[in-house]
């Protein structure tokens, strides 16, 4: 598989061409530094993202609470996680970093609040 990855580590934004299969990388060209090389490897083999969204609450004044994944989630699992999070209703009070969903979609990642509801 061939893929062009735009490095987002620094504002230069090198276009890095990667060829290989999973962790087995045959060639990599176009990176400007070591950090970019590591980024491109990870982004090619196991792309992950921090997932942020909102969860409904039972509070009338604050109908939504912002949440995030406490660790990055595999990119291909993002929509599954969203479906799971949509089912969640947070009961007030909620504090910052309270865990709202444990091990979402068997990813080993928790969904935690980034705001608070009284």
């Amino acid at each position, binding site marked *: 598989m061939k893929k062009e990855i*735009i490095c*987002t580590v620094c*504002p*230069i*934004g090198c276009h890095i061409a990667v060829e290989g299969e999973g962790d087995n990388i045959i060639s990599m060209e176009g990176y*400007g530094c070591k950090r970019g090389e590591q980024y491109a490897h990870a982004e090619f083999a196991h792309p992950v*993202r*921090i997932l*942020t*969204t*909102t969860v*409904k609450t039972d509070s009338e004044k604050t*109908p*939504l609470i*912002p*949440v*995030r994944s406490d660790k990055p989630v595999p*990119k291909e699992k*993002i*929509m599954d996680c*969203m479906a799971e999070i949509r089912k969640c209703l947070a009961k007030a009070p909620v504090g*910052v970093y309270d865990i709202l969903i444990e091990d979402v979609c068997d990813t080993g990642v928790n969904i935690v609040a*980034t*705001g608070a509801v009284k």
Partner: protein
Amino acid sequence: MYNLTCDVAIIGGGPAGLSAAVAAKKESGGRVLVIERDESIGGILQQCIHPGFGLTYFKEELTGPEYAGRFADEAKELGVEFLLNSMVLDMDERAGTVTCVNREYGMTAITAKSIILAMGCRERTRANIMIPGSRPAGVYTAGSAQRLVNRQNEMVGKKVVILGSGDIGMIMARRMTLEGAKVLAVIELMDYLAGLTRNKVQCLDDFEIPLYLSHTITKIEGYQRVKGVYFAKVDENKKPIQETEQYIECDTILLSVGLIPENELTRKALIDISSITNGPKVNQYMQTSSENVFACGNVVHVNDLVDNVSTESIKAGKFAAQYAMNTLPKEEKAVENIAGENVRYLCPQSISVSPESEKVSLYFRVLHPDQNVKIIARDGDKVLASKKRIRVNPGEMEEITFNTGYISGSSVTVEVVKEGQES
């Protein structure tokens, strides 16, 4: 009228106001008061639930509410006072008085030794950019849609077209997709991205959302609700090319066409405003043309990274506190900063030179993208500082730092030139 006095009064409780408050309190220990019209502090960051904040300042990736929360907690611990639900209506900068309406006390006058403006900015709207066609429902600015979706639990539409490739638009493209909407196109007039590359990768490419550079919306269709848009490629004079016109059916249009500093109060107070940034002109202390008034954050110039807002606001807080204590370095002469080749504007616009040499950083944006360039700050023929950059982009803020002790003339020019072509 209810009366209050303090050492430093700060208008606006967003990240700029909060960072300034923390710094002012640390510098002086005097009475620091933040005046905020909203019922809670945090400013625009309360609706920016996405990650990407704090990478430079805290060296970790935080969401907007977390970033604002860190400064809010610190401010509270230090004993900064807050006046919420208080809309500032007027400022008499000579008397050092700020007038606001507070939900509890009614009209309230706050007298302070120094004032910091931290009112942020608002979004450009359709009226500011003039799109032809009908005026149906379903046209939102990206930021107001963000507020509705992220704070009020109101989904704004199902089939979405976004005009403008600013960061807020791209972030909303991802947000709407995650919430089940289909984002059909992001349309950008210029031939380059307006926002950060990181946002294109993580918000558009991840979800295969098409980006049309050098395109614009030619007409909005729909009577009561948006039904679709016509859009076309533009020529080098930014005129739509008729033959390239396409139609997309959609029910929602989000505008992400830029921000304007919120400067009603500044204008009324007759403080000098830059015609390019639309914010007050400041020196390196973030001091405006009125010596007891300081300014920081998006009210001065539109920042894309909140980390830069904090850095600049910490200066405003520190120096406003020094002004209140009468310890701000005495100005010997004022030096004007001039935008040279491929520089759109410089912030600060001037430097207050005192007998003591100090480091100053000038922030700026380039006019057009370029590669392999050298950034040079010079005083006449004398180079004060220079650095190489592989790539520069109007979407990302640049910076150059030098010592005021080296300045002998009355102005400093910053230019961005191709490497090897500098004179």
